[in-house]
């Protein structure tokens, strides 16, 4: 059971990162903040899982990185969605919708 949850959350994190980057390029911290802000703080990104996820996504070719300058003028690694990443986002979104509908169907049968 615990495994399934971890898997699920991990998959969700990837989807959230992809969605965030669809709005333009960002560094890692900005991605975390954007997710937290967008979910009104309901989802708190675990920073320790964020970066390995980013490196893994880079390897998969969904995102690519370059060195740029942050809004505060600091050198920062900026991530950007690739065309492949955009396709992956579509797929993950659809998967999430299917999953959420299924869970809702169980938990909220009335609606």
């Amino acid at each position: 059971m615990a495994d399934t949850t971890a898997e699920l959350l991990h998959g969700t994190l990837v989807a959230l990162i992809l969605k965030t980057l669809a709005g333009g390029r960002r560094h890692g911290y900005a991605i975390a903040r954007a997710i937290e802000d967008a979910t009104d703080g309901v989802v708190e990104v675990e920073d320790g899982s964020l970066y390995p996820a980013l490196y893994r996504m880079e390897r998969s070719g969904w995102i690519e990185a370059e060195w740029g300058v942050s809004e505060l003028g600091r050198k920062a690694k900026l991530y950007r969605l690739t065309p492949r990443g955009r396709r992956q986002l579509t797929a993950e979104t659809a998967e999430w919708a299917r999953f959420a509908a299924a869970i809702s169907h169980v938990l909220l049968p009335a609606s």
Partner: protein
Amino acid sequence: MRFHSWPWKPRVDDEVDDELTFHLEMRTRELVERGMNAADARREADRRMGNIDRVRAACRALGEGRDRHMRRVQYLSEFVQDLGFAWRQLRRNPGFALVAVLTLALGIGGSTAIFSAVYAVVMRPLPLRDPTRLMVVGETVRDMPAMAGSVSAGNYVDVVAGTTTFEGIAAEQFSNFNLAEGGAPERIVGGRVTANFFDVMGAHPIAGRVFRADEDRPGHEQEVMVSHRLWVRRFGESASIVGSQLRMNGTPYIVVGVMPSSFDLTTDTEDLWVPIAFTDERKAQHDEHYLTVFGRLKAGVSRQQALAELETVAARLRRDVPRDDIEVGFLLIPFTDQLVGDYRTRLLVLLGAVGVVLLIACGNVANLLLARGAARGREIAIRTALGAGQWRIVRQFLTESMVLALCATGVGLLLARAMLAAVVSWNPEHIPRLEAARIDPVALAFAIAMALASSVLFGLAPALRLSKPDVHTGLRDGARGATGGGFRDRLRAGLIVGEVALSLLLLFGAGLLMRSAMALQHVNVGFNPGGVLTARIALPAASYAEPDRVVAAFQRVADAAREIPGVTAAAVTSNTPMAPGGGSNGLIPEGRPLDLKSVIQSRLRMITPDFFRAMQIPIVRGRGFSDQDRRGAPKVMIVSAAFAAEAYHGQDPIGKRVVCCESGPNGTPDWKIVIGVAGDVRTDGPSVAPAPEFYLPIAQAPPAAWEWVQRSMYVVVRTGGSPAALTQSLRAAVARIDPDLPVFDVRMMDERLADALATERFNTLLLTILGVVGLLLAASGIYGVIAYFVSQRTQEIGVRMALGATPGSVVRLILSQSLRPVAVGAAIGVVAALAASRVLTAQLFGVSRTDPLTIAAVVTVLVAVALIASVVPARRAASIEPTRALQAE
């Protein structure tokens, strides 16, 4: 761009550190903004990161994986790009592509074909359990380890009893069987084997069972195992064969099993096996050596350990059985080596030769690439300008070479298949296991490996040369401004040197073999093979038990053969030259002590008197046999000139007495009187020097001798007409004497002689073809290079002619310069050839491996060909109009 010596690893580490540090700072700043104090904010940021060391390590590992992956992806995409480009380049220059591909295909196809043969014969493991542990145990005499002699039954029994290093030791006596069941009577080669034979060999039957341990006892030997080949050929793969009865040599046998086709190790191995039954007398017999002994080493036991143990057995035999075994020893030969014999060297020599052809082909293609590269200077300059480094351009060129080589491999494999089919169908003298040679995955892998290796070989030098951005202009300037001084292009001159040296090597080898073949053609074999027909007849032991009956039957065969119209002489003999069969005996001339040291081992022929007339072997002294030399008359023998020389050192042998072959009454020596000396015969082939031989009239043959030859003899008939036409009448004549007697191995004598030379002819032919191909390739290479030099020097030649040089002097100039690398190559080639001809020593006959005449001939041919290849471009140079040449600038 950063410049580290290993630019990737520190980058990933720094990348991770920078990124995580940045994150922690930003998170702390955020928390401070929300009202935390700095220390708490930092702690909270650290908490949310978790174990930072683990995160860092995970990110580094992932980052490195990512970089590796990206490098690979990039490399691959560049490779695909290069492939496409290479393919388009070849399509754009079909002439170049065709010549290069065919040249390489010749080399790659040739080496693949020969490799397949080498693999099939020498390298492919035998289909037996652990074949490396299977050994042949041979007897040696007088410390002559080169001879793996057959083993006597007594010695075999003692070896089995006295050793522990073997898992099992089996013995086999090769025998012939007359098989009369189902169809015409037929002579079949088989083996009498100990019951453990198949276990020791490591093979299992596909039907039935092998012999049981109690089936090699006297009185029980009524079982027979048949080979897959015989089962298919003679019994149509009948499933009911196991348990059925076979009559062989007039005795019934029960078939107990069928061996698998994999146990037909070569095309001429045994077709059936019956148990060998040693009686107690046999087991005490140390004198008659007729067993082939196979031993399977225990796992982990070395050959040396087993040999040491065999030596203790030998020492005991020398002490206990001095009369027969005073000088006995044992040796162990891996079974594979025994089976393959000396073909290993011959095939490896051929493989080496074909490899040399491939090298020459590579030289030519390298030259072609250089020539074409000059035309691609612009393209390379553009690519360099667009940022391609030298290594990137080298890779592009190497990819092109590889595409070229792989195309050539495709064509080469077709060639190889055709060549292999031709070689296998020819297969002179039945090289064992050659029939299994084919273009299989192993050969395919070899061909691709050769292609890749040669693509580097011919592609690297041109690639390095052409990828240097400054070379093209530099080259052109050098060629333009220079005057005299020969070739400045070391690479091209080096190609000529190499090709000349390599083709000289090949031609010298071919030349030596050709001279050997010529010498063999003119060897006097000691008899006249023309007009002689030979055939074998074997009498079954069941109906011809008594020696008298055997002698009478063969006498009648000889008489009947002489009656055939057209026959001028006919005889029966236990052995004819160039044919299997016939053993040897130890002879001691009178006057020498009667012990093993005095023995002259000599080949025995038991004959009817007409043999010398039929074969036209001269009686050089004394007389031949007559009908008076029969049983009861004084025992006589005729010896060969080689025996006379060894035994009597120039004294007259006639009337001398010799002891041999049997004992007289009460174990006294049995003397025979020498009545004649026959001319020497090259029994084992024209290349093998005559050994001592002796002849006995069949009427006086020792009774035991009919067991030695297993009642099997040759009929030889001489005719003034065509010997082949006599086959039918000979068969009919034998059938009138006994319709159940198979007449087999019917062949004309000159066929047998030609067969004995077939291997030599085959080798000579192959090496000569390779030599000629190498020479042609080298000639075209030389032509290409000289033509290039001439084209580069058009202007200089124009100047010379404008200054009064005659066309003749221009031709001489070009020739003298082009012949310089040819001379260097020839010198290197001569040295290399003299060193390398060592590998041919065993194949040479009547010619030294450093034969100066052959060297001179080969050098002359090569220089002449090089001259011809240079004359064409040289004359073109001389026909240049000075004004045109000067305007060309």
